[in-house]
């Protein structure tokens, strides 16, 4: 009886949303949107690498060696002829005056910057660089690399190595291929893939929970504002109406995510250009992130519990306010909690097993977005996952109980927005 009515409500909520243009558009362009969000920063960073002005520098060499020339050659790269790197050999005594002249040239915008190579460079203490681009991290990194390679090659040759060997050693890059252990029989987890996967899942959960939570809020608000609520309540209990709405909207969310997951192999086919843009070499050799059925089910559990938690709160907000404008205001505190979770994103990526990351991934309100990220970056013991999910389930149950009471009372109150005291009274009412 009640189940049949619940089914009718769920069906209406589901069909009315899935049939809209809005749903089609978001489903079609959602993945592109996510990719853009994830990739845009690195694409922009890559663009800013290529500061053409970085070679418009004067190197003041007070070491009486060819180190300044070597640094210039490294900085200029293979196309040395076209560059404007200028090396001036200076006697240590003349250095202050020559430096002042160069700084004037920088100020007059004839030069981008000036680097001073002297005895403290060899001592490994510091090398002065005064430039208009001294705040651009990409430029400073390029200058640092050129400096390190130039000095290293000079000192290796001075120690007796022949020139090609010295250059080879100086220019060789050393990088760590960071991987994480996985269960035997599965592909190794590549750190970069894990980070990408984790960030994508977190982003997806964050956006989905807000998107569908707010959809519940708007749905409740519409029912209250158009006064259709009492018409429906004459046929079904308030709890059934609330459950039907939350389940119906949630089903829309799961449908959308299912479509995206099904489309993932397509994105995977084009992983080379996509990941290449992110600075991942040999992208074609990368495997799909290896996630087992258990991990996938855990992620779904995080989405469902996170969605239930937030959508019940959003439903209560929708029922207690009188207009959409008020609803936006009243929903702010809830959205702030989710935004707060995203603020910890960097900290969690930097140290997924750190105390901060652990605490944020345990709190039921931030766990649904942070724990999936931690899971993909490091191994989280199953018992920990189980406890966090249990904590979320309990919080969920409490929130739904309180929200249902506020919903039931608020839906038929057409006056002013209730005070906190009144809300507490509604929440206690059985």
């Amino acid at each position: 009886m009640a189940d049949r009515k619940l089914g009718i409500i769920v069906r209406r909520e589901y069909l009315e949303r899935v049939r809209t243009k809005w749903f089609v558009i978001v489903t079609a362009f959602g993945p592109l949107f996510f990719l853009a969000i994830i990739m845009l920063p690195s694409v922009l960073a890559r663009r800013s690498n290529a500061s053409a002005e970085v070679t418009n520098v004067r190197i003041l060499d007070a070491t009486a060696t060819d180190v300044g020339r070597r640094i210039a050659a490294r900085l200029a790269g293979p196309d040395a002829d076209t560059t404007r790197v200028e090396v001036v050999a200076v006697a240590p005594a003349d250095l202050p005056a020559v430096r002042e002249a160069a700084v004037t040239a920088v100020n007059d915008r004839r030069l981008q910057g000036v680097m001073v190579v002297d005895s403290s460079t060899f001592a490994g203490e510091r090398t002065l660089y005064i430039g208009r681009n001294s705040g651009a991290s990409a430029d400073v990194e390029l200058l640092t690399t050129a400096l390190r390679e130039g000095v290293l090659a000079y000192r290796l040759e001075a120690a007796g190595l022949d020139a090609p060997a010295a250059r080879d050693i100086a220019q060789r890059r050393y990088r760590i291929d960071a991987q994480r252990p996985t269960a035997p029989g599965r592909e190794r987890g590549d750190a970069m893939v894990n980070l990408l996967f984790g960030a994508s899942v977190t982003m997806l959960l964050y956006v989905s929970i807000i998107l569908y939570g707010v959809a519940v809020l708007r749905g409740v608000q519409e029912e209250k504002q158009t006064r259709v609520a009492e018409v429906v309540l004459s046929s079904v209990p308030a709890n059934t109406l609330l459950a039907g709405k939350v389940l119906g909207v949630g089903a829309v969310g799961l449908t959308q995510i299912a479509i995206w997951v099904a489309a993932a192999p397509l994105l995977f086919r084009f992983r080379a250009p996509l990941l290449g843009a992110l600075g991942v070499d040999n992208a074609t050799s990368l495997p799909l992130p290896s996630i087992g059925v258990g991990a996938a089910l855990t992620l779904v559990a995080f989405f469902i519990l996170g969605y239930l938690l937030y959508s019940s709160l959003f439903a209560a907000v929708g029922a207690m306010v009188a207009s959409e404008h008020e609803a936006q205001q009243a929903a702010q505190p809830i959205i702030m909690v989710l935004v707060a979770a995203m603020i910890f994103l960097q900290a969690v990526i930097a140290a997924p097993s750190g105390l901060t990351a652990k605490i944020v991934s345990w709190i039921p309100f931030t766990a649904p977005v942070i724990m999936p990220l931690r899971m993909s970056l490091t191994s989280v013991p199953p018992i920990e996952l189980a406890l966090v999910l249990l904590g979320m389930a309990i919080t969920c149950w409490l929130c739904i109980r309180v929200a249902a009471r506020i919903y039931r009372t608020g839906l038929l109150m057409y006056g002013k927005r209730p005070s906190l005291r009144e809300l507490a009274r509604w929440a206690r009412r059985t």
Partner: protein
Amino acid sequence: MTHAVVFDRVAKRYESHVAVATLSLAIPTGTIYGILGPNGAGKTTSIRMLMNIIAPDEGRITVLGRDSTESGITDRIGYLPEERGLYRRMRVRAVLRFLAELKGVSAREADQRIDDWLLRLGLRTPERDWGTAKVEELSRGMQQKVQFIGTLLHDPDLVILDEPFSGLDPINAQALKDAMVELRARGKTVIFSTHMMDNAERMCDAVCIIARGRKVLDGTVSSLRASAGQARQVALAFADPIGLDENAAAVLADRTLISRCEVHSHSVDVELAHGADAQELLRALVHAGAAVSRFELVQPSLHQIFLDTVGATGVEPGMSGHG
């Protein structure tokens, strides 16, 4: 006589006020029953408790022979709330089918009935089928019709209308009255609440007057009017359109005969003084030489009964005897 609805000592209190205090009522099956009272009297709260939307603190309500909290009972009730509306972005047919299905009508059966109703209320004509339009595309009057169809689509045995005439245009109001009479003819029970006494007086078989959450009076309209005592109101008119010659005026000014006198453009309403007799007044008028063209003893109206029993203190702003 069977009763469609019985309120047995029902009470509902909120933190700050008493909405309904120990209300007992029996509403006969197959009648049009009015719940009357000023705004804030507890009409909507009583109806919401009857619909099991809110729970009473005390007492019990029996609906169609079963407890009002029993599941499934609301499927036999059609309810038009005072605060009413529809899903604006849904199509008319879809909304109506949704409402019918919630009442247990199968989709196919619902579609058939929707077609009949749309035709009957002029929402489906050869030129235009409004059933395929979205609710928000409809005029306010059309939306009222759709709302009304939604209330009756499952052919309920009991129809509850909370302030049904508020906001209704005259054409829809008449259509609603016709439908209420037709429902009664088919043996259905219709309950409606109103603060407009004239409507109630014309349509209801029986009424209940409540004020400040308490029942003041209930019974059939005729018994209420009879028990309100002898007619104390006389409607007078005189052959001379100006109405009052000096002699007649002197009679009407006699406070041993008349306690109150209201002079209108073509008539005079008077209230007999305590202990005075209507015949005595007529004799006095004739004796004074007034050309009486109308002399009618008027039964007290519901409005008058209401004022007499509740008193002016029970009437809040917005209360009106006419509508």
